[in-house]
């Protein structure tokens, strides 16, 4: 079922900054929509507004085209998975999953079959008699998912579902969730601060900053055409360069880039350069070292190496290259290198036609 948030605003306590302000987004049926943003951006509050766990100060929430803004969370028919899992600690796994059905007074036989089916679905068959304290984090997360699905919700809401898990389990559960959602086609809204998770899992990303939606769209859209400097730096950790346009070229310190057509001379611009869109080369002869960047630091992350550069104008830049490339260059901290920008997004601020 589709979910629509219409200019939702929520303030905790008067006089404080709004946790969510005028947030608008759409979640299409059968898709995974991600609410992405740094901590404190209001993404969890927005999810709780959709679930009805918080009441908005203004704005409306629609589920399947129906205005549910004043409807209690009891009757919204959403499945909510908390970051802390919030399993009922005094109940067995079976009773946890059965809870929603017991509230709805489903017949006993149907209930048992459904719980067994769900436990199979989340790959925990035979775990019914265990207690939450006896499960690992990943197992608890899947019980929470089974519990949320037991009442056939129209929408599944996941609040940082993998936040408390270690990296390996997180990756596995992420793949499992993507596959699971493909199979069940349940409309899912997922909150995360992890851009990789958002780009990999979802068909639609809603990026939030300080309680506002700054950009929404398909993951590649946000990645390739960031609307603001914040989007560009949050997604893929782009380097930001600033400078002015001079005779058709965008010049930032010692680097220059192709300026967009029609850019006026003297207009200031900012450009985003992804860390993996930069190539480094050693200068062949004794060139003027002033035009060269200096290698500050090399950080190895598996097969990738992060290079911290200091540009001639004093700005810093992060570059990502493969370990083999770095080794063939023989790069060491303190070296002078040529910087080659393979791709950059240039935004001219004073755009005149």
């Amino acid at each position, binding site marked *: 079922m589709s979910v629509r948030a219409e200019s939702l605003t929520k303030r905790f306590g008067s006089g404080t900054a709004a946790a969510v302000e005028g947030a608008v987004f759409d979640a299409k049926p059968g898709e995974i929509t991600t609410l992405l943003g740094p901590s404190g951006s209001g993404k969890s509050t927005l999810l709780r507004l959709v*679930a*009805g*766990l918080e009441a908005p100060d203004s704005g409306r929430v629609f589920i399947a085209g129906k205005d549910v803004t004043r409807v*209690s*969370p*009891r*009757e*919204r028919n*959403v*499945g*909510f998975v*908390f970051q*802390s899992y*919030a*399993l*009922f*600690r*005094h109940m*067995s796994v079976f009773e946890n999953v059965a*809870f*929603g059905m017991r*509230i*709805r007074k489903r017949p006993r036989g149907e209930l048992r079959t459904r719980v067994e089916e769900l436990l199979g679905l989340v*790959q*925990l*068959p*035979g*775990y019914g*008699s*265990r*207690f939450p*304290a*006896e*499960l*690992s*984090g*990943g*197992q608890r997360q*899947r019980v*929470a998912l089974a*519990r*949320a699905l*037991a*009442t056939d919700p129209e929408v599944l809401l996941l609040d940082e579902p993998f936040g408390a898990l270690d990296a*390996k*389990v997180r990756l*596995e*559960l992420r793949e*499992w969730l993507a596959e699971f959602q493909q199979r069940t086609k349940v409309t899912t809204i997922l909150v995360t601060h992890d851009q990789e998770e958002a780009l990999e899992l979802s068909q639609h990303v809603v990026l939030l900053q300080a309680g506002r939606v700054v950009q929404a769209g398909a993951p590649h859209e946000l990645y390739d055409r960031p609307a603001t400097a914040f989007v560009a730096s949050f997604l893929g950790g782009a380097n930001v360069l600033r400078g002015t346009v001079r005779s058709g070229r965008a010049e930032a310190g010692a680097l220059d880039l192709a300026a967009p057509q029609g850019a006026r001379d003297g207009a200031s611009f900012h450009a985003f350069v992804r860390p993996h869109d930069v190539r480094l080369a050693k200068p062949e002869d004794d060139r003027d070292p002033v035009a060269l960047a200096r290698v500050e630091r090399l950080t190895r992350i598996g097969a990738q190496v992060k290079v911290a550069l200091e540009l001639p104008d004093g700005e810093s830049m992060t570059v990502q290259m493969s370990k083999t490339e770095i080794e063939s260059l023989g790069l060491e901290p303190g070296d002078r290198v040529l910087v080659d920008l393979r791709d950059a997004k240039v935004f001219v601020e004073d755009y005149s036609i």
Partner: protein
Amino acid sequence: MSGAVTAAFRSRERRRTTIGEGSAPRIALIAAAVLFLALFLGAPVVTVFLSAFSRGIGPYLGALRSDEAVAAIGLTLTTAGIVVPLNLVFGIAAAWAIARYDFPGKSVLLTLIDLPFSVSPVIAGLVFVLLFGARGWFGPWCSEHDIRVVFAVPGVVLATTFVTFPLVAREVLAVMQAQGSDEEEAALTLGASGWQILLRITLPKVKWGVLYGVILCNARAMGEFGAVSVVSGHIRGETNTMPLHIEILYNEYDFVGAFAVASLLALLAFGTLVVKKAVEWAALARPARVNISLPAAPAAVGERSAAR
């Protein structure tokens, strides 16, 4: 199953290695604690029993069988029997309201709950005399309707309720606040009503806090002296509770009688503690049983052995 065993083994190992200070400080600390307990807790209790039986079992039983003693014991048990359920209900209601909802006057309610702790019990007793005494606010109304509060059993119950109110409320509130409300919110999204959440989620969650509060409340209700002393009027055989009866006997130099009733009061307190321990053991035994009866579960994707 082997996961649980290694976990237990590991925790024992950790306990041994974390005490890296050597054994001298440990022995000194334990000795200090034991000595202190023996001197300030053990010795008085032993004295109570020694004095009670100083003239043999006959006078001891005689003191307990006297009409006045039987009446005092009866009144104490009746009072506890009324006060504990009352404070159980009010305490859970107050804790639930404070932990779950935001409402105007919440901080006032919190302060009110703490009031009986900060006010001297004697003053608490006086408050009821001023309210329900012959010249009190409700005194004339009460005497018109032939209701006796002060110098009667209702006064004793009211004063005891007042003094013991924070015990359940504070215990339950602390547990509720520590556990957060995620589980309640989860139950809400699963369609549970307010009463269903209270009965199926919150109460089972906070039952240890409730139990502990009830035990403390019961102990205090049976032992309360100051507030009850002011409102009871010390009418023998009618409004004397066990602590008041003990005082009267003691003032009359009937040491055997005083200590006999005191020993019974101490035994009631011990009984409460034994019940508490028994319930705790029962609670600890339950997950262990579940552990043993676990079915052989197939290994799940991406999980290491049972993390505990």
